[in-house]
C-alpha cells in the first residue's frame, strides 16, 4: 500500500510544475544566442548532441530547444569542448559527473533502469506468445469445426 501511495504521490508531484511549453515561452530571450561553429562537421555533431542533453531548469526540454540561459551556457560549453577535441562520450561523462544522469535525455542502461529498457520488449514478446497460443488453439478448433462458412461471402463491410 505504501508503494502505491508513493507511486501516486510521485505521479502527481511531477506534474505540479507548469507545462514545459509555457515554461519555454516565459524564458527571457537574453543572451541565448550561441554562434554556430565555423567547422560544419563539428557544428552538426554539436547540434545532434544537444538534443540528447536535458535543460536542467526547464521541464522536459532539451538544451537544443530551450531558451533558458543555462541551456545556452551548455550549448556554448559543448562547442568549446568539441573544439578541444573531446568526444561525445567524454562530454556526456563530464556532464553526468557534474549534474547526474538526470542531464541525459536517454536514460543509461543500469540495474535500476532495467525494467524501463527491457520491459517493452518483454511485453511484446510475452504478448506474441499469448497470440501464438491463441492462434494454435483456434486452428485446432478450426480443424474440428463442422464446416460452416469460412469466408464470409457478403460484401466486405469490415
Amino acid at each position, binding site marked *: 500500500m505504501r508503494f502505491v501511495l508513493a507511486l501516486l504521490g510521485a*505521479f502527481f508531484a511531477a506534474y505540479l510544475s507548469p507545462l514545459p511549453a509555457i515554461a519555454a515561452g516565459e524564458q527571457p530571450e537574453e543572451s541565448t544566442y550561441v554562434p554556430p561553429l565555423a567547422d560544419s562537421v563539428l557544428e552538426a555533431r554539436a547540434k545532434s548532441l544537444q538534443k540528447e542533453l536535458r535543460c536542467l531548469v526547464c521541464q522536459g526540454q532539451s538544451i537544443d*530547444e530551450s531558451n533558458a540561459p543555462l541551456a545556452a551556457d551548455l550549448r556554448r560549453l559543448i562547442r568549446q569542448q568539441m573544439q578541444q577535441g573531446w568526444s561525445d562520450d567524454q562530454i556526456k561523462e563530464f556532464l553526468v559527473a557534474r549534474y547526474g544522469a538526470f542531464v541525459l535525455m536517454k536514460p543509461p542502461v543500469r540495474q535500476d533502469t532495467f525494467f524501463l529498457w527491457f520491459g517493452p520488449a518483454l511485453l*511484446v514478446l510475452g504478448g506474441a506468445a499469448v497470440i501464438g497460443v491463441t492462434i494454435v488453439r483456434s486452428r485446432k478448433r478450426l480443424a474440428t469445426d463442422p464446416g460452416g462458412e469460412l469466408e464470409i461471402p457478403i460484401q466486405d463491410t469490415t
Partner: protein
Amino acid sequence: MTGEIGQLALCLALALALVQAFAGFIGASRGNERLMAMGRGAAMGGFVFTALAFFTLMFAYVTSDFSVAAVAENSHTAKPLIYKISGVWGNHEGSMILWLLILGVYSAAIAMTQPTDIAQNAELGSRALGVQALIAIAFLTFVLLTSDPFLRLYPPPFEGNGLNPLLQDPGLAFHPPLLYLGYVGLSAAFSFAAAALLDKRNDAAWVRRARPFAIAAWTALTLGIAAGSWWAYYTLGWGGFWFWDPVENASLMPWLVATALIHSMMATERTGAFKSWTLLLAIAAFSFSLIGTFLVRSGVLNSVHSFANDPRRGLFILLILFVSISAPLVLFAWRAPKLAPGAPFDLASRETGILINNLLLTASAATILTGTLYPLVLDALEGIKISVGPPYFTATVIPMLALLAVAMPLGPIFLWRRANWRAGLYDLRYAMAAAGVALVIGLFLARPASFLGMLAITLGAWLIGGAVTDLSRRAGSLRRVRLLPAAAWSSALAHAGLGIVAFGVVGATIWKSEAIQVLAPGQTMDVGGYTLRLDSTERVEGPNYFADRAAITVTANGRTITVVHPEKRSYPVEQMVTSQSSIRTTVISDLYVVLGDARDGGGWVVRAYVNPLAPFIWLGALVMALAGFVALGGRLAVKARAARSAAAVSAAE
C-alpha cells in the same frame, strides 16, 4: 446573479444524474420499460442543465464579470472575444465543466439512439446510461465540492489577470474541446462494456451499440492531437511538432488504445472473436483517458497552489480514478471466463492481423506509460533522478509502430477466419513495388540517407500502396472504387493517412535544414536553398500586446518569392514574450522563420528552418479523421436505408 444560476443548474444536473443511475439500473434489472424511459429522460435533462451551467459560465467570461473568481483569474477585458470564450476551458474549473458538458452530450446521444422496448434489448442501453450517470455523479460532486467555477469574489477586482498568451491562439481554442470529445467519448464505449458485464446475457450485442461512439471518440482524439501538435509547431518557435512530454503522452495513450479498440470491436462484431479482450480494451481506453484528462488540464497539473491548498482535490481525483478503473476490472474478472469463444480462425486471417494490431498498439501505450511514470517512481522509491526523454520513446515506440506499419496492409487484404495468404501477398505486389520505388528514390535524393528516414518512406509508400490495393481489390478494379461502401473507404483512408503522416514526420525531423544568424537590416542568410534578407523591423500594437515585426524578403535562385513577417510579441498583462513565427508553405515544404532577440549594435537573431513534407503530418491526420467521418456517415446511411425499407415493407402490408 448568473453565477448562481450556473451553480443551481449543476446541482439539478447532479439530482438528475442520481435519478438516471437509479432508473437506469433498476429499470433494466426489473425489465420495467417506464423506469427505463425515466432514465432516458433524466439523461436528456442532465444534458440540458449541464449546458445551462456551461453557457452561464461562458456568459460571465464574455461580459468580463470579475465577481466570478475563475473569470477574474483567467480573463481580461482587452482580450479578443474568441479568447474570452476559449478562456472558459483554459483553466481547471472551466475545463471540468466542458468535460461534464461533453459527457452530457454522449449520454443524451445514447438515450436518443437507444431501442425502447425489451424485445430489442433495451436493458443494455439502460444500464449503459446508469454507468454514464455514475461517472457524471462522481464528476459533478468533484466540481461542486472542490472546483466550483462559479465561486464569487468580493469585492470584485477592477480587471482580470488575463490568459497565458501562448494559449491565445486559434489552434488552441479548438484543441481542448476536440480532445475532450475524444476522451469523454470513450466513456460511452466503457459504459456499454460495463453494461454488458452486468447483463446476464453477456453477448457481443454491446459492441454494435458502442462502436459508433468509439469511432466518434477516436476521430475527435485524432483531430485533437493533430490540432495540439500543429499549435506546438507554429507557436513554440523552433519547428518541433511532437515532444513526448507527459501532457502529449497523456493524449497519445488513449488514442493508441482506442485505435486497438475499434479494430478489436470489428472482429467481435463480425465473428464473435476476442469478446473478453474487447471488453478489457473498452475499460482500458477510458481509464487511459481519465488519466489523460487530469494530466492535461487539472488543477493538479497547472498550479502548485490549488493542489497544495486543497488536498481534497487531489484525493478526490485519485478516488475517482481508483474506483472507475478497479470496479469494472473486478466485474470483468468475474464475468469474462463465462464468455463463449468466437468463431475459430486460421493463422492467415484478418483476426491474426487484428491481434498483431492490438498487441503492438497496447504495448506502445504501456511503454509510453512506463516511460512517463518511471522517473517519478524511481525518484520516489530510491531518490534517484533520471530523465526519460524523446530518445527513449524513439528507441522503443518507433520500432513497434514500424512493425505495425509492416503488418497494416496485410490485415484488410486477408479475409476473416481463413485467407489464402499467397493470393493476398500477390494482390499486394504493386504496394511492394511502390515501397521499393520509394526506397530507391530516397536513397538517391534524400540527404542525409539515414536508416530511419529510409524505413519511414518505404513504410509510408507501403501503407499508401496497400490502401489503394485494398480499394481496387474490393471493387474488382480501380475504376469501380467509387461504388464501394463507406466501410471499405474508411479503412483504406485511415491506413493511407498514417502513411502520409510517416512522410511528414521524416521530412520535418530528419531532412529539415536550419540556420540561425544575427542579421542587421540589409544582411542576408541562407537556409535550404532560400536566401533571407532582413529589410526592416518595426514596432506594432495588437489588441493586448505590442510586438517587434520584421520584414524579411525571401529569394531563391535570385528570384524574390515572398516577404515574411515574423513577430516577437510582448504581453504586458501577463508579462510574457512569445514568438509569432512566420510559415510559408508550398504543401511540399515549409519555410519557417522566427524573429529572436535584438542584439547590441542593431542586429536581430533570426532563426530559419526548411521543413520538407512537414504539412503532410497534419494532412495525413486529416485523412485519418476523414476516415472516421466516412465510417460514421456510412453507418448512418445504412441505418437510414434499413429504416426506409422497413417502412416500405410495413406500407406494403
